């Protein structure tokens, strides 16, 4: 059971209605906050980056789970990875920021290029890659003992970065994640005390705080209620152009709503997963070339 606090979400819905009515001040306020430039010393280069997989393969031990994935995730666009469970989407996503190698026995072949540079090149440190390619997980995982503010700033501490204006960075990150209004009066209360949906947005804010070039999202809404899901989708929409987003989702409507491009993964029984078809989302959902894609996006699969 996802622990979604119903009360809080009802409140936030009410609050959202209010927000839609009287956001003029808030908008101006937000604009002012975003006008401030926050410099992160040692952080990633500015702007979104293109991520490209070339013939990517992944193993767990002796088992090949993903084979021959060629996929371009263009800068500033939202790319959705869809497909049934166990077809290697999440594995592929974890290849993209070197989280794959944390699993004992994990191996890979092929290249993952971030703006043309292989992230697995010898001499490239995983920490450096992960700082540039942020990740949001399926289950919200804020640091429960840290305050909301500390959570947002956690990456600075972890990656040993310096920032000249932490308060503004916290506000900007929480604004981008759509959480600022709800938490601005309690930045010093623990992150673990938020509702499930708020926790996930806190995790998004935490990932955005270092200004990553790419944001990976592994089924970010699967543990959330519809209101929180909408919030997260709004956030993804606002990130378009600023950050390259790659999102794994099992929700076809969500893929349709948020993504520009779509890749359909599939694994035959006892075969490694591969990309069956990829292309612009509207084409993938209306006139895909592969009949299996059509079956899947229309929910006639299996």
């Amino acid at each position, binding site marked *: 059971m996802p622990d979604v606090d119903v009360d809080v979400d009802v409140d936030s819905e009410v609050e959202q209605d209010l927000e839609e009515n009287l956001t003029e001040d808030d908008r101006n306020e937000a604009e002012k906050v975003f006008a401030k430039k926050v410099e992160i010393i040692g952080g990633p280069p500015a702007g979104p980056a293109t991520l490209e997989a070339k013939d990517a393969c992944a193993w767990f031990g002796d088992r090949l789970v993903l084979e021959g994935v060629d996929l371009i995730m263009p800068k500033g666009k939202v790319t959705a990875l869809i497909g049934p469970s166990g077809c290697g989407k999440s594995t592929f996503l974890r290849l993209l920021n070197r989280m794959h190698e*944390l699993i004992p026995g994990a191996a890979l072949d092929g290249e993952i290029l971030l703006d043309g540079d292989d992230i697995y090149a010898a001499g490239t440190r995983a920490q450096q890659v992960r700082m540039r390619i942020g990740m949001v997980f399926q289950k919200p995982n804020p*640091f429960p003992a*840290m305050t909301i503010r500390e959570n947002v700033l956690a990456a600075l501490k972890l990656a040993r970065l310096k920032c000249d204006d932490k308060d503004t960075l916290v506000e900007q990150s929480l604004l981008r994640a759509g959480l600022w209004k709800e938490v601005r009066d309690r930045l010093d209360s623990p992150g673990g005390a938020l509702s499930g949906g708020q926790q996930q947005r806190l*995790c998004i804010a935490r990932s955005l705080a270092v200004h990553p070039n790419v944001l990976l999202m592994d089924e970010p809404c699967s543990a959330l209620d519809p209101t929180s899901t909408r919030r997260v989708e709004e956030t993804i929409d606002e990130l378009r152009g600023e950050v390259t987003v790659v999102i794994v989702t099992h929700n076809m409507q969500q893929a349709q709503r948020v993504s520009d491009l779509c890749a359909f993964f599939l694994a035959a029984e006892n075969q490694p997963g591969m990309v069956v078809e990829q292309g612009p989302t509207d084409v993938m959902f209306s006139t895909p070339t592969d009949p299996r894609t059509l079956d899947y996006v229309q929910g006639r699969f299996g």
Partner: protein
Amino acid sequence: MNVVPGTVVEDPPVAEDPPAPRERTRRVITEVPSRADRRFNQITMGAGISVLVLLTLVGLFLMIQSSDALGETGIWTFLTRTEWRTDVTPARIGVLGLLAGTVLVAVVAVVIAVPLSVFSALAITEYSTAKRRKWLVGVVDLLAAVPSLLFGLWGFLYLSDKIVPISLWLTQNFGWFPLFKTSEDASLTGSIFIAGIVVALMVLPIITSVVREVFSQTPPGEKEAALALGGTRWGMIKTVVLPFGKGGIVGGSMLGLGRALGETIAVALLLPQVPQKIGESIHILQNGGATVSGFIANRAGADEFTTSGLLAAGLVLFIITLGTNMIASVVVSKSRSGAGVDI
């Protein structure tokens, strides 16, 4: 809402008194356990209670046996006197000098053992492959299987001489720190410091295993989050594993402290068992000191009054270790990480 299906619920009329609360009968639900359950319940409860009974019996035995010495000396005098002289009449016995040594040895042991344990636990849980993890766990557990007599002999016959240069270095460089001061031409063997080191090795496995257990329960999601944010492994440990395991570290240390307080053979062999004189400054690096358990072991089999006095000292130790262990288990169970750990 308790609405009987089929009844129409009408909106209450406005501006009228609220309806009186309905009469309700409370049905108390009683479960009738099966015979097997009842039997099993009795057995388990019996086993649990027998532990408590045993503990109480030990306490009672100590109290009765020590009443002679305590009655004659007076409880307060016994607790606050540092001397232990049975050659004068009336005998002047007190536990404070022994307690001071006991606590010092235990503290030295824990101060040395805790960092070692925490780092070995981290090596096991965070830096090892599955194969090496198994091997390391086995080695640490093996350390727990070494009889304490062997530790004591090894410390006495071998380690003692090897530590002397370290003691010398410490006192030469950090002699300004009161505990590290030594008097001129004092022997540096048979010191509380050396006893503490040997006891540290004995409590290391228990602390390591509690801390390791707690570390291994760190939520993987939080660890992944820290790594995904660009953290190094050590950064992840600092932000996630150590804060999560804080309760386990404190609890494990106190459990180790409890063990160290009662450690007998090693200290009986290593220390001269001369009660520490309070008021005189304490020198942990030089020959001297006694602990309750070591002292009891050395003097066991003496006349009736002395035995009674020794048992009184044992009673004090019993109460202190019991208290330490209780505090340890409370600390661990109250912490976020300790909920599932039994110590």
